[in-house]
């Protein structure tokens, strides 16, 4: 496990040493495909690397650290649907195309869905349609897509309406569809949690650099105890998220467990970027500094895949049920 981590992290850091290296979406996409990341979670017997969720979890954190733009997350969801769903004639071909980097996409919303939030629907060859009783892949020309500009420009989201006679490959139906949806929710939440964790670490790093490099009243900002204590609290929360993420992603998770993880990591990310902007002072409010990019992504991560209120409430109900079961 730690060897796999080393290998994946090393290659990620070589290709994407920082957010600027991943700034161009189509370049970054090509790099991700070339690194073989889309094969990581796919079992070896159907052409993947067989590194499972643990391998994916490492990649998710790297994507967040480098703010990698583009529809990477949704590609993983489509691939997972193809792997976990019922096999069909064209399945292997589609899977191979997806693993090699042909863009396919899916919705990033969970819970009260005010929007589908389908990433890069205009560039994808296929769109994964997730309904309660059926999960299907439709070809892009079977959908009307409408761009929804986001504050976080690293994520291009779309609303999608499917035309009636769209060509579709059914991946799961009925009870199986519910199971697959659960699995996809799980994966999405892990992905967002990892993205948040990697982003939080990077945002704290930028902030520390700023505090150490900038002086005020003839001292480095990093010497002011009130500021020290704030970054110490962030470090404590990030390390806690780190341990939580490592622990949960080493097991097989339910959607609720993944949602809980997502909630915690995203809350830590948000706390981090909120303080990071303040600790940057005025320059943090200008587009010349990178911190606002992390800020906006942190907020979007909170809202995607079910927001904090959604998952906290589910976790609370589960805790009540657990307590009643014990009594």
């Amino acid at each position, binding site marked *: 496990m730690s060897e796999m981590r080393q290998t994946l992290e090393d290659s990620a850091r070589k290709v994407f040493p920082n957010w600027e290296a991943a700034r161009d979406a189509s370049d970054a996409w090509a790099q991700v495909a070339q690194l073989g990341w889309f094969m990581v979670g796919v079992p070896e017997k159907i052409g993947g690397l067989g590194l499972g969720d643990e391998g994916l979890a490492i990649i998710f954190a790297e994507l967040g650290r480098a703010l990698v733009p583009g529809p990477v997350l949704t590609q993983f969801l489509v691939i997972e649907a193809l792997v976990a769903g019922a096999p069909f004639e064209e399945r292997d071909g589609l899977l191979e195309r997806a693993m090699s980097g042909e863009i396919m996409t899916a919705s990033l919303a969970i819970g009260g869905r005010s929007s589908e939030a389908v990433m890069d629907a205009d560039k994808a060859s296929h769109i994964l349609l997730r309904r309660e009783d059926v999960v299907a892949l439709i070809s892009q020309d079977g959908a009307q897509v409408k761009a929804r500009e986001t504050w976080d420009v690293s994520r291009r989201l779309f609303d999608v309406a499917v035309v009636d006679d769209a060509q579709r490959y059914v991946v799961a139906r009925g009870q199986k569809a519910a199971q697959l949806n659960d699995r996809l929710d799980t994966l999405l939440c892990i992905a967002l949690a990892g993205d948040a964790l990697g982003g939080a670490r990077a945002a704290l790093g930028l902030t520390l650099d700023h505090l150490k490099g900038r002086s005020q009243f003839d001292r*480095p900002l990093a010497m002011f105890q009130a*500021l020290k204590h704030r970054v110490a609290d962030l470090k404590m929360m990030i390390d806690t998220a780190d341990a939580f993420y490592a622990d949960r992603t080493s097991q097989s998770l339910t959607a609720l467990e993944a949602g809980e993880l997502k909630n915690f990591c995203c809350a830590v990310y948000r706390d981090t970027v909120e303080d990071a902007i303040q600790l940057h002072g005025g320059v943090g409010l200008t587009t010349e500094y990178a911190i606002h990019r992390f800020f906006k992504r942190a907020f979007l991560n909170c809202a995607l895949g079910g*927001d904090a*209120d959604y998952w906290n409430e589910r976790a609370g109900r589960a805790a009540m049920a657990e307590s009643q079961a014990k009594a």
Partner: protein
Amino acid sequence: MSTDLQDFRAEIRQWLDREAPTDWRSAATHDAFVESQRAWFRKLVAAGYAVPHWPERWPGGGRTLLEQKIIYEELSRADAPRLLLPFVSTYHAYATIGECGTQEQQERYLHAILDGETWCQGFSEPNAGSDLAAIRTKAVRDGDHYVVTGQKIWSTMAQYADMCLLLVRTSTEGAKQAGMTYLLMDMDSPGVTVRPIHQIQGDEEFAEIFLDEVRVPVDQRVGAEGAGWAVAQATLASERGLTLMELSYRMRGALTRIARQLTEVGRADDRGALRDLGALKIRIDAVCALADQFLRKRMNDEEQIGDASIVKLAYARCLRAYADLGVRFAGLDGQFHAPITFGDLNSGNWMADFMNSYAWTIAGGSDEVQRNIIAERMLGMPREPKSWTAEVAA
């Protein structure tokens, strides 16, 4: 309240019902917003509501602080545009020139302000942050001019300003404060370049000013050479109470935006959400009361050191809480980009409001600086020894 004041309130309310622009939020560009500000200021000047804090000899001047308060209460109530573009002119430039300027300077500039000449403030510098005494922009005497070279930052709407209140360094000897001089600079002077700052929410409310051997006539100096620090205090002290009162009241009025947001997402009966809304509403009411009290203290000459820090910190923290709740209730909807509304801190465009709220926790003395002032100057906690600074600087 006296009948006179009630009449005054009724008069301005009637006027606002007729005249207050209702379309100012639709300005699609910063230029259009600035144009709407100019038009609104002209209207207010004509009606005698633009400069109530100026002396009586000016049209609309000579108002008591209580009357000024009524004006701003009514402006908030009518949801009229905030006066942003003429703010530095009517408060900072007026206070500085009126208090410390020569007769000629007063003649030259104060009339022009009412005619629409706009000012910006050239105080902050890239590496000075909250430490104003650390400025480095240099002015060298050359005959009857100063030749100024350096850089200013965070100058509100400098790209639209005609004139600049400029703080420069004329000496590096002795205490840092002693080497500062105060100039009035024409923004059209050769060597002045203004670059708007791209803010993270898409606004360009601030600008950088680059100064490359700009020649400023010596008679444009305010106060003596080396007296700039003292003159700058007059600038900084010029307005503290009314704005925070106005802003607090506007935030109070904008609570309806959060309530509407809650209804829109179908959570109007979510007890947890209602409690959070209620707690925010109570907090805003408390901050409004604090801002009112602060203004009353000013009226009665009872303001204490640190009071201004308390009000600013309280408002800034509350404004953040306001935006935070909006972002939360909006969920995914709040993450879709909507065009920003210039000059509105409580627009209901939640991510924009959230980012805007940092202007109040960072600019004009950050929360951290305010906390130092409160702790050391109100609560009597000891400062760090000077040697600390010295050792690091060495």
